[in-house]
């Protein structure tokens, strides 16, 4: 062997290990400072050279809300059969928008950061996590608006409402994280993912009780159909959010919600946490090939 000129002993460096961070989501939690910078970067890049900047994150939901309200509430006259129809839509829309936003941005998150992925050693889970964080940042103000609107309309929350709110938001965050992780990784290898994601986004819009009430589902689907409907995490999150904000604002007796909603929600949250685990496994498996495939 060659003599090691200049070699020094450095026992403080610890053991030899494979380079590259393979600690996954835990690694992301350990490097919150880097996460913060990536989120700031994303926000800055997204709104640079944009006249209205962050205001877009209010304008877009406002326009969407107005369209829904006008077409469904006024033209189709759902206002008459659903009490506080505006609140019904808005409490659902926040959740659905959150999901479709993370779905779209999260899926692109790794590919969009290709220069970092190809050349620097970053825990790659950073990108989908940063993407979900950016969406959360945008959704926060919407939640505040919802809260203010609900209070103005006469919100009298019971304890169930608070539990429902926490459960609904937790389900939404975990399912979004799972979806962003899995699809961002698959999107590196398969172009099909883009189309797939669009299709899911469209399905989600109609498969949660946003533009129609749960009452219709309960009336027309039957017990089996109902269970299938409730197996959709987005629908569950929407129902929980409506239970938290819409139901306590309406005079009692006028709203229909699924039986045992909190229990269903609790089970759903556990399932979504499991899905995050599965998504992390998919990500870790595909991540090995990221740098060379892009």
């Amino acid at each position, binding site marked *: 062997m060659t003599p090691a000129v200049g070699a020094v002993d450095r026992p403080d460096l610890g053991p030899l290990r494979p380079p590259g961070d393979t600690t996954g989501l835990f690694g992301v939690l350990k490097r919150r400072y880097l996460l913060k910078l990536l989120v700031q970067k994303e926000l800055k890049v997204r709104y640079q050279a944009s006249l209205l900047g962050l205001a877009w994150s209010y304008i877009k939901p406002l326009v969407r809300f107005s369209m829904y309200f006008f077409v469904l509430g006024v033209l189709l006259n759902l206002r008459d059969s659903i009490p506080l129809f505006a609140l019904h839509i808005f409490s659902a829309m926040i959740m659905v928008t959150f999901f479709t936003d993370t779905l779209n941005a999260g899926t692109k998150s790794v590919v969009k950061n290709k*220069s970092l992925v190809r050349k*620097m050693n970053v825990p790659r889970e950073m990108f989908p996590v940063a993407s979900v964080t950016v969406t959360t940042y945008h959704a926060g103000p919407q939640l505040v608006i919802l809260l203010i609107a609900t209070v103005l309309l006469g919100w009298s929350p019971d304890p169930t409402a608070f539990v429902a709110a926490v459960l609904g938001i937790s389900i939404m965050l975990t399912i979004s994280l799972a979806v962003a992780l899995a699809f961002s990784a698959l999107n590196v290898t398969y172009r099909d993912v883009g189309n797939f994601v669009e299709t899911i986004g469209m399905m989600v819009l109609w498969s949660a009780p946003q533009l129609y009430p749960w009452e219709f589902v309960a009336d027309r689907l039957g017990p089996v159909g109902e269970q299938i409907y409730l197996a959709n995490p987005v629908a569950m999150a929407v129902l929980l959010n409506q239970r938290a904000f819409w139901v306590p604002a309406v005079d009692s007796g006028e709203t229909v919600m699924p039986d045992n909603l909190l229990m269903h929600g609790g089970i759903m949250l556990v399932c979504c946490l499991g899905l995050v685990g599965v998504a992390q496994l998919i990500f870790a498996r595909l991540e090995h090939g990221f740098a060379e495939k892009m």
Partner: protein
Amino acid sequence: MAESVVVNHVSKTFTLQNARTLKQRFVRRSRSERVNPTFLALDDVTFTVQQGEAIGLMGLNGSGKSTLLKLISGVLRPDKGEVLTRGRIAGLIELGAGFHPQLSGRENIYLNAAILGMSEAEVNQKFDEIVAFAGINKFLDSPVGRYSSGMFARLGFSVAAMADSDIFIIDEVLAVGDPPFKKKCMARIREVRDEGRTIVYVSHNTTQVRKLCTRAIVLEEGRLSFDGAVADAVHHLRYDEDPSGDEDGEGGEI
């Protein structure tokens, strides 16, 4: 003696043409073609670097040097064999790697440093030093997309060189940049070496490698063909037979 980088029977195969859609994959498979044609970029490479050694990694273009550096830095993973390292790794795989053109110099320094594993306090402490070394004072708050290639190069090197690391890797990046800056960089790399940090340095410049490195490794078409003294490596590569093909003249001024 402590091992710093261990490369153990490492092979890396690249997929040349990706079947990106499911349909393409099915079509290729049903014609019983290989799903993807492949290319062996590294073939059973084995060597060990001790802590504090400065290694010159040499070889012709396409011989696998960059691929090897990416494996050591953890950007790529080996298909066969294992790569093991000790301590923090910093360096430059490519000039301005990780810089975002729309962010300012300042923002890029913070982001890049955080990626290299520095904490906020550490970057704050070294910020002035990084800016001074790069000499971009006046342009600190303009987007790096508007920097000249020289400024871009200086900033990238500066962040990587100031980061605390135990292993420092550099890939041919000093080929860009003007002679005064190259000189500054070489001086900085020598400092890094004298601090007892491990260096893996890719360069065609035999003079630089001779001055900086204590040992050279030569790759030929993905195989390790030489591991030993720098002078012998230069001879092995036959770089010393061709007086016109080398930039020794320029390297001489460092």
